[in-house]
């Protein structure tokens, strides 16, 4: 058990997939399986007990949605990378989990090589993103920009909208190119940056989205009188 090994926990209720992911990680020498959980309760215990670098989590757990766990982990253990295990056509959930603090996602039927390279990418500071997810993220940001300020159209409100967009021009451009199906390498070539920088940008985008949505949640909670100031 080397210190360089990436320690991983798996939260997955379907035994077949749990076994498959466990096998993939076990067969990879640079990774270590730190524990598995089949439901929210077990997962919470695992999170409290273990130290880990990466959490693979399925959103649809028998005793509730995994979004709460993602939010919990991303706040208590900011160094942990959270990777959502998803089925295709589930982009909306991917965006909500990114907003909750996830930095990556992987399809359930991915090949073992895909799973390994995805986890590596995450730990190296990048984030994988598919065109449809990129498009969904763009859409989520746009609707949020139109959201709180939509009630008034005065000039200050519009500038507040601009402030509402947490992304820089470069980050938005990268998302747009991703949405068109371009790879990190191709985007890097077009923008004159390394592919690694592109993935770093994407992770930053994810973080911003999570922080932003968290801030919004706090704001909304204080508005509703849930938090004492």
């Amino acid at each position, binding site marked *: 058990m080397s210190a360089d090994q990436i320690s991983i926990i798996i939260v997955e209720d379907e035994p077949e997939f749990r076994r498959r992911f466990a096998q993939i990680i076990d067969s990879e020498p640079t990774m270590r399986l730190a524990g598995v959980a089949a439901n929210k309760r077990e997962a919470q215990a695992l999170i409290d007990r273990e130290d880990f670098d990466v959490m693979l989590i399925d959103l649809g757990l028998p005793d509730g949605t995994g979004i709460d766990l993602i939010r919990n982990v991303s706040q208590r253990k900011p160094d942990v990378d959270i990777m959502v295990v998803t089925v*295709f*056509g589930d982009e909306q959930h991917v965006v909500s989990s990114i907003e909750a603090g996830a930095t990556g996602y992987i399809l359930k039927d991915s*090949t073992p*090589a895909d799973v390994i390279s995805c986890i590596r990418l995450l730990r190296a500071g990048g984030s994988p993103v*598919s*065109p*449809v997810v990129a498009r969904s993220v763009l859409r989520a940001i746009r609707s949020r920009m139109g959201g709180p300020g939509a009630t008034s159209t005065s000039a200050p409100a519009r500038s507040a909208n601009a402030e509402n967009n947490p992304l820089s021009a470069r980050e938005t451009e990268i998302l747009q190119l*991703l949405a*068109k*199906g371009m790879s990190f390498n191709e985007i890097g070539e077009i923008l004159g940056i390394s592919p690694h920088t592109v993935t770093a940008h994407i992770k930053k985008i994810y973080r911003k989205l999570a922080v932003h949505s968290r801030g919004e949640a706090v704001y909304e909670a204080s508005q509703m009188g849930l938090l004492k100031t």
Partner: protein
Amino acid sequence: MTHCLNRRPCIPARPSPSLRTLGRAALIALALHAATAAAATLPIKKLEWSYVAPDAQAQADPSAPGTNFELPLRWPTEEGTPLRTVAMRLRFGLPAVPDRTWAVLLSHASEGGRLSINGKYIGTIPEESAWRHVAWRRPQMLSIDPSLLLEGDNELLIESRFGPGAHTLARVEVGPQGEIWNLYALQFFFEHTATWVGATVALITALIFGALWLERREAISRLLALAALFWLTGCAAALVEIMPQGLRPWVQLASIAATAGFMATLAITLMRLSSLARRREEWLICGYAALGPALCLASSLRAEPYLQLAWQPGLLLIVGVATGVGLYRRTQAGVASPHPLVLVAAVILLCAGLLDYASVIGLNSLDGVPAMNFAGPLMLLALAAPLIDGFIKTMHQAELARVELETRVREREQLLKRNFERLRESERVKVEAQERQRIMQDMHDGLGSQLMSSLMLVERGAVSNDQFAQILRESIDDMRLAIDALAAEDADLAAALGNLRFRMEPRLRAAGMELTWDARRLPEELGLHPDVVLPILRIVQEALTNALKHSRARAVRVTLGTEGSGESQSFDIRIADNGRGIAGERVGGRGLLNMRNRAQKIGAQLKLETAPNVGTTVHLRTRIGPANPSTRGQQTVLNTQAVIERARQQ
């Protein structure tokens, strides 16, 4: 009044009302009875007539007896006759000197004069002079102090002057002032106030129908307004009782012209109401009506008395004929005829005219009220009533029509709204059905047929584990494609193609092929119809799969972009490899055929360029721009037919 104060003697104490006409009697009988009930008055029937100085015929001895006449008296004087001065002595006997004030009443006394009782002056009524003409139509009353009266014989002296024209003195009555005043008031009403009432009716009629004519240009309104104006003129002439001498001929002329005009207009109106509008007859009537005033004018009024006798009955005759026509029309069905009220009024008018004429020629009592005074306004009202009634009915109908129209418009509006909602609903249902059909067909074409053929292979036992995994993977790929196409909101083909790229890239890389994806010339939004998204995805997947399986290429390049602009804008996809190309016998292969069919269905162009050891390029061009509904409709039909066709085949 209607007392028989004509040439025949009658009992003064109880004068019986003469039954002349129903119309007139009905109007006056009531008042008459009220007046005669307390008939303590004393009518004087005889008068002694003598000319006095300065009259040329004045006798040298004023006390010499004059000529005796019986009342009523009518004495026409020719035009040009100088002013005459006359003394009329009327004698009456009293059994005792009354203790109350008495009065004398002169009925239909056209001349004024100075009145004395037993030589004692009692008062003056304005009389004719060199510069002033009087023609009283109202009764006159003067009071007599009882101290002037004597037991036995008394004498009432009227000293009067008269000029040319027709003069009358119908009746003289003395009696207690109260009783005389009753008679006076009654006569005043019928002979003076009634004229005012008639004038007012005529004025209002003229105003209303004149305005109606100005607004609507309706012939009957014009005739009615004209008749009313004539009547008004006649009334005005009758109401002017004192005038300068110079004005007298004109007032008389106006009076004659007004009568003629009224009668002529009335006759024409009656004819028109009987829908008998004959120009020639109408001109004849007008001509005859104009004849009287013309002759009067030409003869400086000398002809007036003769006209009254000979010409005026002609007017009555004309109206009578017109009324007869109206009555005749009334008996015919289906022909426009005057309102019954109009005909009744016309008959009354004719009777009144005949009565008045009878008074003129002396067949009848002189002292009756001119019956035309009542018949004229009655006629105007009778003519106006149906018109006004019709007008009100028209307004009611207009109101009803408006309400009905409003109701209909509202109903139509609701109907339209319902239809619109039904249409929208059916549109929605249609869109949903199209969507369902699309999804159904996608499942059928893709996953369904793939699973079906896989099942057959597996059942034959001809599949190894790896092949089985491969088949399932392909099935999942196809399902993903379908889901990507469905998830691609706003037909977001670029992202769906991107997803496809990400799925295919590891496999190509594993086979030693490098995939380049050039989407730089792809705009943010592609205006493609949802129906074409999945076929395009399938074609691209098929092309990449072909390259993967058969090309042995080192590199595959996918270029996405739009060409042209506006109507001719198109979406172009090129999938090019540098492999060994497709051999001639394989160009008609199943994969390529599938691609071609799919391209054809969505109206896209598919070009295949292949050369041995150079490579293969698949070029797909899809038109963007406003979707053509007709082609889309055809496409739906084609798709439906294709589904049916395939269902038959299986």
